[in-house]
């Protein structure tokens, strides 16, 4: 356990003290291998939640031989409780574009796409202006890389990278079988890097500060700073940039309202941590996180919270695979039946087992992650499920 004090950092969200495009200019003067190595050494992991090592992803993409490759910035943040990408794209978009461009340059890709969730359409006008600035800059420095926006149409599952690609190809956003991964066979069958907004911004920061400096932040498990979307029963709702490694206890002390009974770490696809585990749970250790943290105080019914989550999953499952499509419905119907007394409380055990089946047998991360919140809430707040 590498517990750290809660510490605010100001890397990603700080205003441009050094122009991100200067970082880009400096970076593309170096050798590609060196930059990819730097990215590997920085230990940066995907910031969307899955936590795949970014440097490795770039390396694999750079090794693919193809006439065309794509860099896709996943701005389809649909996880309830997550809004950090909105903040990044409204406040420091150039860090994102610079990170995308570096990724493009390092892997010989010339096309970048920002897949923006439909709910953020009001941001398109401003983003397009910024993209124009970027595209002109790229031309100016002789970098063959351009970015455009692809607007989603409202489907949580499109945050899953292969579903996102299907959607860009004009199809239903149903996740693909993997392998092959997008790095081998992505958008239009070409090698594709799909990365989270914060990941690209962080990559730009790695290039600015260098891996040696970057690894000083965070835990052994995860380096760097992390943006947290904090909502719920907190007087400090909003996006906060923190160093990974603090305990929930410290976190709650800083952001709770003094009456916190549970914290949902990682959005509805993450875990719900009850008060009795606040001390021993370190954020960023063991589990990666997209940074969504929802705080619940003692007035909240955890049954109601879980019901709300399950409603969400029942609707947002793409519906193609059995465990997720039917499993989500069963979990919802099951807790209702227990609450109403139609099923014995022991039925909750059966449902937890089912959620474990969903975890190991679902096709994509959506179905696989339902068990996280389900099992943690049902186990830790069992009385609330029954009475």
């Amino acid at each position, binding site marked *: 356990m590498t517990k750290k004090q809660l510490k605010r950092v100001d890397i990603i969200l700080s205003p441009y003290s050094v122009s991100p495009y200067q970082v880009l200019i400096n970076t593309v003067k170096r050798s590609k291998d060196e930059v990819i190595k730097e990215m590997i050494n920085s230990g940066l992991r995907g910031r969307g939640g899955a936590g795949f090592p970014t440097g490795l992803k770039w390396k694999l993409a750079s090794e693919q031989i193809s006439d065309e490759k794509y860099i896709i910035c996943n701005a389809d943040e649909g996880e309830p409780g997550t809004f950090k990408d909105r903040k990044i794209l409204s406040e420091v978009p150039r860090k994102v574009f610079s990170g995308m461009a570096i990724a493009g340059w390092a892997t010989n890709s010339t096309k970048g796409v920002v897949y923006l969730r439909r709910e953020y359409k009001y941001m398109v006008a401003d983003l397009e202006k910024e993209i124009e600035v970027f595209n002109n800059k790229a031309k100016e420095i002789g970098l063959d890389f351009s970015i455009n926006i692809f607007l989603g149409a409202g489907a949580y599952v499109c945050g899953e990278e292969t579903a996102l690609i299907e959607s860009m190809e004009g199809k239903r956003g149903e996740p693909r079988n993997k392998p092959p991964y997008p790095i081998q066979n992505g958008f239009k069958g070409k090698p594709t890097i799909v990365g989270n907004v914060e990941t690209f911004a962080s990559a730009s920061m790695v290039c600015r500060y260098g891996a040696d400096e970057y690894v000083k932040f965070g835990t052994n498990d995860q380096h760097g700073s992390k943006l947290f979307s904090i909502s719920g029963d907190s007087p400090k709702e909003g996006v906060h940039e923190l160093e990974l490694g603090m305990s929930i206890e410290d976190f709650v002390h800083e952001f709770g309202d003094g009456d916190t009974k549970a914290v949902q770490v990682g959005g509805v696809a993450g875990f719900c941590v009850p008060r009795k585990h606040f001390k021993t749970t370190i954020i960023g250790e063991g589990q990666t996180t997209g940074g969504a943290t929802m705080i619940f105080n003692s007035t909240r019914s955890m049954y109601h919270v879980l019901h709300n989550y399950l409603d969400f999953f029942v609707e*947002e499952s793409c519906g193609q*695979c059995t465990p997720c499509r039917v499993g989500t*419905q*069963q979990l919802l119907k099951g807790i209702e039946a227990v609450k109403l007394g139609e099923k014995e409380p022991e039925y909750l055990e059966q449902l937890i087992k*089912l959620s474990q089946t969903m975890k190991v*047998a679902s096709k994509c991360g959506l179905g696989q992650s339902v068990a996280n919140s389900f099992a943690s809430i049902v186990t830790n707040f069992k009385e609330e499920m029954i009475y």
Partner: protein
Amino acid sequence: MSVNLKIDGINVSVEKGSTILDAAKKINIKIPTLCHHEDLCVAGNCRVCIVEVEGKNKLEASCATPAEEGMIIKTNTPKIRNARKDIISLLVSEHNTQCTTCYRSTNCELQALSSEHNIDHERFLSVLKPHTKIDKSSWSIEKDDSKCVRCQRCVRTCAELQHVNALTVSGKGKEMKISTFLNLPFSDVVCTNCGQCITHCPTGALTERRYFDEVWEAIGDPTKHVVVNTAPSVRVALGEMLGMPVGTRVTGKMVTALKKMGIDAVLDTDFTADLTIIEEGHELLTRLKSVLVDGDTSVKLPMMTSCSPGWVKFIEHMYPEYLGHLSSCKSPQQMFGALTKTYYAEKNNINPKDIVSIAIMPCAAKKFEANRPEMRDSGYQDIDAGLTTRELGHMIKQAGLNFAELEDTKYDSFMGDSTGAAVIFGATGGVMEAALRTAYEVVTGREVPFKNLNILPVRGLEGIKEATIKIEGCLPAWSFLEGAELKIAVAHGLINARQIMDMIVAGECPYHFIEVMACPGGCIGGGGQPIPTNNEIRLKRIKAIYDEDEGMPIRKSHENPEVTKIYADFLEKPLGHTSHKLLHTKYRKRNRY
């Protein structure tokens, strides 16, 4: 390149690109599946075929996971069994489990899985949507969403095998379902009625519209004279419905069974298949003459066959501007119907209004075809009911007949004579082969220059087959064909038909005559045939068809004595006035979307 892996302790080596499921099959390890079908691309969505891959916590769908060097796989562990049981239970929980009244009972993949895995009905609550309405709008196909397991086999079939795309997946989450455009009734969409979705459906969600109750009524009605004609491919597949091995030829038993059921006359569609060859062969020769000699631009080449009603409806929807390429010949079923209520009625002195004419077909589209308003040239509905091979199988069971023990009986006459040429109509390439056996001889006076009359280039399961036949030594009447090279092609499966049509549209079609069958493998793989159907089964049925042909004393349509007689007694000559009235038809443009 090959990869080596270990499954349940057994080493196996497979081609790179094979799946874990393929590898397991190779060493006879059976992994249960549901959404998987040999004919279709991988979906990996039912998750029934999950296995453990050493080093991974997740279970992998074996149908969708490539075999990799050094993999260590387990297919039967407590972890897998528990998960699989959950998954099958989930499928059952959203399923209409009234198996006792399901047409597919005992032939249902979900039922088999559920029974094999001893699924407890109470494991989960039912999430079956109440009050789903069965779509019975189509003459051919019924869709019951309450029995759908959402494996998408039908959607993939409609797209990959047929390129019709009448079916899609709509909605998401719990609202996700298999749907037509706007969820319109089948009768209103671009469905060709081929029925391939039915033969690929693992459950009773998609079935043919059944007519056997009406048929039993007619049989029981003493005032009705019930006539049946049976299609060539039924005789090589019906046995599968009744516990016999795939590829068993049951022609004689089938006739006996029909007679025992109380059918008044059991006749052979082969008779009108032979008649089709005469009419269609002459139509082709006439078209060739019009184009090559008279330079008539209104006559279209290539000419395309019209015996497959799924194909006919496909071209009516998708390429209505090219209907002129279709032969005007009715299908053998409809020729049979028109003649039954005219020629047959007259010869047997039966009032045609008392005849109930039934066709036993390998086909779902034949039901629609029988109900086309233009198919009333006898003055009555020419065919009263089209039944599938499966329906006949059910009727034989309903009648309590011990099929395997039945003796052989010959077809009644007349309109019961057959030739080898007619029998092979049942396999892809068969119509072409039969046509060539006759047309070549008509033109040259000699048999087709193929050993033992077997025109091998047009046989087999390749999607599009082609051949060129040089015509030499013509009889004087056909001298304009001297030295001509007749180019022919055979396509089966509508996706292949579409390729041919696109060649025609692009003006790049080199052929004179093309046979198209809607279903993969031709009629032996029809939408009304026993389930399952896959390539292994198709090949066995095809072999049975050619064996039947080889065993026939007459193997050329123009030598069928009843055919000769009907021209002498009734039709006068091919393409003559009566022929035109009864044996030829017109097509119509249908909506494309």
